[in-house]
């Protein structure tokens, strides 16, 4: 048999359906937010690892002149090597019908039927292309409209050639095309020959036996390189990736971090809203509490009733929230995996997901209401049973400070201001609930602005239109002369570019990165300095690194030993710039060519100033071809903008979705708090009517009260949003680009939130006040 106090709980909940539903909704939003995020976290981390692990990613990639079957076989025969395969990747262009082109990453595979490293899977059509056929990675279809059976033209540094799209493949080990802005295609070595390039493979991809860490993979690679070099086989460079880390892991970490942050804010906001509503209920039932205590209820029993109420509502929210959270989480997982080009093998949740949700959904609201419940349960009986519905506190104690006493505001406005501070603890809770939502809203928009500025700064820093990588070094004068006939060109700089790697303190070398050697006082780039200075004409062996360079990440002022083209020299790092694009491993700019590398007065890289137009590019290509200058790759300065904007869209979109969700909770809280505040003073409003207050005057009082609370919550939101913005912009910047974003604020977000809360507060206060003024005065006066 249910005891009377639990019957009371049930009937009170049923009696105040609106409030009950709102509390359940508030907790449910928290449960759904945390549940979807936890389930997404659980599945995404597991499935991402699985997707990547199943491709059998390489422990290291060794770059050689050419690799034959015997070399692969002898490598595979080593006991420490589990798998080995030869590949080649080149950058080419996919020429569209309109004459426009898109970057094409061509992967050359010798045996499509026997792929053991960096596996990809046939998706549709052929799985083993003929020499004049190409397979396209499925995520490329977001960048280019292609179908099986289409004939495409590929322009490689050798020549252009038509290929038939024979099939689609899924390559989960790669960054998806929308992130790189490049189409990925797979051809045979003979297909490569058809493009005028030597049909040789130059990447030896190896997988070590066991689950070694990066250092052990480095040691293994060093041994292998030594052995190869002892046999007279030159290894031009080596890449040792972080084991098990997918190239898109950084994006994923940023997204998960944002999701977790907003999940916590959603829970805290819903907790504050629950506390606001339960505090209102405690206030409304203060006399009932007094009576219960008078007939023998102890403090613990009273507290139990209200904590039990919250626990009951939390349980209801869990019943709704857990399945909805799982469903939303699935949507989030499907969306994320769609973006990352992964397949979800199983949506099974880890065993910790639901227990954490339960603890959070029940624990946070209980924690949030613990203080008001404890306080109200302890109130002496006399105090609560002598409350007659009109506050008896002395006027001097009524809040509002100087504002509440400012004569110039008029009596009615002053009355409204003082009312806002009558129930201070509830006012504070309301302000917390709304300000958290507001702060989240502002942080989302601020971060969007910061990302927008970072992308703008990146592209503003590029003063060139084209970046051309040549097949070898040519005399600089020849390069300049070759391009003098192109009228669209505003300037030409001849650069050098080499793969380079820094020696690690623990031995071996770090990631291979692009070392660019611009002329002194280059005018082609002006990336924002994060630390130190840019290169000077009188610098010798000086380096400026980008913030992405992290293996190792040298400090500004530090000396590093760098291997470039067989030369090993010491360099001084003089500065660090922010460059969002530049590859996964980063870029470094050098003051001079390393000793013994290249030839003085020659260059293998050109930067061209001018308008970024197809006509410029074709004119440049034509002139270079006519001068017998071989081009390996051409990139435009604007290339990657779309890809970065897409990254941005995802981050800001995600932030906005979360901010809107939290804002809804905050907005509901504001509306309900205002509404409760008016309803519980219905008798007071009746007294105002009885002494002659017009409807307009009554509305004036309650709207001033509501708007004041809303405005205060906006101030609090603004105050919270400043450090939160700095934190979120710093963390997302660091996670995504290895440097904090430049702190930015969105005037639109700040202003919009003020408009939203003021409007909500005015409407939510006015509606119950209007209902009261429409009723006969005696009914309002009789309101308990």
């Amino acid at each position: 048999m249910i005891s009377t106090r639990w019957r009371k709980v049930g009937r009170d909940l049923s009696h105040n359906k609106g409030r009950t539903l709102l509390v359940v909704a508030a907790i449910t939003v928290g449960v759904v937010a945390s549940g979807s995020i936890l389930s997404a976290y659980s599945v995404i981390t597991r499935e991402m690892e699985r997707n990547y692990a199943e491709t059998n990613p390489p422990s290291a990639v060794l770059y050689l002149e050419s690799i034959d079957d015997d070399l692969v076989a002898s490598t595979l025969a080593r006991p420490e090597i589990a798998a080995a395969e030869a590949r080649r990747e080149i950058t080419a262009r996919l020429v569209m019908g309109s004459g426009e082109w898109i970057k094409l990453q061509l992967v050359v595979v010798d045996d499509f039927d026997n792929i053991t490293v960096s596996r990809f899977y046939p998706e549709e059509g052929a799985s083993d292309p003929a020499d004049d056929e190409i397979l396209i990675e499925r995520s490329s279809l977001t960048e280019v409209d292609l179908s099986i059976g289409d004939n495409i033209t590929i322009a490689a540094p050798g020549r252009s050639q038509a290929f038939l799209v024979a099939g689609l493949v899924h390559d989960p080990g790669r960054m998806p095309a929308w992130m790189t802005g490049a189409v990925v295609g797979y051809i045979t070595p003979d297909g490569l020959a058809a493009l005028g390039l030597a049909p040789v493979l130059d990447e030896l991809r190896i997988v070590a036996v066991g689950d070694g860490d990066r250092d052990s993979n480095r040691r293994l690679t060093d041994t292998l390189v030594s052995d190869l070099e002892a046999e007279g086989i030159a290894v031009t460079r080596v890449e040792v990736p972080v084991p098990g880390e997918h190239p898109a892991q950084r994006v994923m970490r940023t997204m998960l971090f944002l999701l977790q942050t907003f999940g916590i804010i959603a829970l805290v906001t819903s907790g504050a809203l629950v506390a606001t509503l339960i505090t209102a209920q405690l206030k409304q039932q203060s006399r009932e509490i007094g009576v219960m205590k008078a007939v023998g209820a102890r403090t613990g029993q009273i507290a139990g009733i209200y904590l039990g109420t919250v626990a009951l509502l939390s349980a209801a929210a869990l019943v709704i929230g857990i399945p909805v959270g799982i469903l939303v989480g699935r949507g989030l997982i499907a969306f994320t995996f769609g973006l990352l080009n992964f397949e979800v093998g199983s949506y099974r949740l880890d065993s910790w997901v639901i227990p954490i949700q339960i603890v959070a959904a029940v624990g946070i609201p209980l924690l949030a209401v613990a203080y008001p419940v404890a306080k109200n349960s302890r109130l002496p009986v006399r105090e609560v049973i002598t409350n007659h519905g009109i506050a008896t506190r002395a006027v001097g104690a009524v809040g509002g400070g100087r504002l509440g006493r400012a004569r110039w505001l008029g009596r009615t406005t002053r009355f409204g201001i003082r009312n806002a501070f009558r129930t201070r603890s509830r006012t504070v809770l309301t302000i917390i609930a709304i300000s958290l939502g507001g702060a989240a809203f502002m942080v989302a928009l601020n971060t969007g602005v910061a990302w927008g500025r970072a992308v703008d700064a990146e592209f503003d820093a590029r003063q060139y239109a084209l970046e051309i990588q040549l097949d070898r070094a040519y005399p600089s004068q020849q390069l300049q002369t070759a391009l003098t006939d192109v009228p669209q060109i505003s300037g030409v700089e001849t650069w050098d570019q080499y793969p380079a790697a820094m020696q690690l303190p623990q031995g071996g070398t770090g990631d291979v990165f692009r070392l660019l050697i611009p002329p002194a006082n280059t005018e082609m780039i002006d990336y924002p300095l994060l630390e130190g200075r840019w290169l000077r004409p009188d610098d010798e062996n000086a380096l400026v690194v980008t913030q992405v360079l992290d293996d190792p990440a040298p400090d500004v002022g530090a000396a590093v030993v760098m291997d470039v083209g067989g030369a090993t020299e010491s360099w001084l790092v003089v500065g660090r710039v922010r460059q969002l694009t530049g590859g996964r491993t980063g870029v470094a700019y050098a003051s001079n060519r390393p000793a013994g590398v290249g030839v003085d007065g020659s260059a293998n890289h050109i930067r061209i100033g001018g308008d970024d137009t197809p006509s410029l590019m074709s004119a440049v290509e034509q002139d270079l071809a006519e001068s017998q200058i071989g081009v390996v790759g051409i990139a435009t300065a604007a290339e990657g903008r779309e890809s970065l904007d897409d990254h941005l869209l995802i981050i800001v979109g995600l932030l906005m979705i979360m901010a809107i969700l939290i804002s809804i909770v905050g907005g509901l809280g504001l509306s309900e708090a205002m509404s409760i505040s008016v309803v519980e003073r219905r008798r007071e409003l009746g007294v105002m009517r009885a002494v002659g207050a017009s409807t307009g005057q009554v509305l004036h009082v309650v709207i001033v009260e509501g708007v004041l609370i809303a405005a205060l919550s906006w101030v609090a939101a603004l105050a919270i949003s400043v450090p939160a913005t700095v934190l979120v912009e710093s963390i997302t910047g660091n996670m995504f680009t290895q440097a904090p974003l430049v702190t930015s604020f969105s005037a639109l977000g700040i202003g919009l939130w003020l408009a939203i809360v003021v409007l909500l507060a005015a409407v939510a206060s006015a509606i119950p006040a209007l209902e009261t003024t429409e009723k006969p005065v005696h009914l309002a006066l009789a309101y308990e």
Partner: protein
Amino acid sequence: MKTQQHNDPTAGRDGSGGVSPGRVVDLTGVSKLYETGAGDFAALSDADLTVDDGEFVAIVGKSGSGKSTLLNMVTAIDRPSSGVVKVNGTILNDLTENEVARWRGDNVGLVFQFQQLMPTLTIVENVMMPMDFAGTLPTRERAQRAVSLLDLVGIADQAKKFPTALSGGQQQRVAIARALANDPPLIAADEPTGNLDSHTADSVLGLLRDLTAIGKTVVMVTHERDIASVADRVVSVADGRILGAGAVKGPRVGSGGAHD
């Protein structure tokens, strides 16, 4: 849970139905000061009051005279600034709030001017509530006792209704039944007829009067002019001081009956 015998609503505390001799209320030198913006206000000054078992004592006085404060001392709803409050053998001064709540549940039944019934509980559930808090009787027996008490005050037929469906007088009867729920020796009523018409007020007073016949001690704060016809003794309070008390002689109002 206590399993004290309660099923006979007319049973006394010893279950015999008889009246135990002794003193139920014993206030000695009780004063109560309230801090106000204008300085300390003495709501009660040096009050001495004794009430014997089975006695019906009425406390009378003007508004603000201190009569409700005096009753609040007896019921431990409020604590004295000085003096000793001893009720039913327990000195209440030093009890914690929780000890007081537990003590009150066992020893005092309260009746208020506004009946203060829980609006979302039915009549019978309202009567069961004190038993629930005090853990009196096995859960399934509480409803049976509550109905018996409602029968005693003449409204058992309304047991399943919610308070709003009842008249003021009927609600006050429910409040009296609720006050009897844990079979306390003392019934304390604060202006129980203040909100009722004269006919209904007579009926409620009669009901309270009848409680003494089943061994209850009744202390009541009232404005009723003809209280002398019901109470055994009238204690007058003015300006926080007890002016005097006298025994009442003559006929008393009989049972309030079942209807208002």
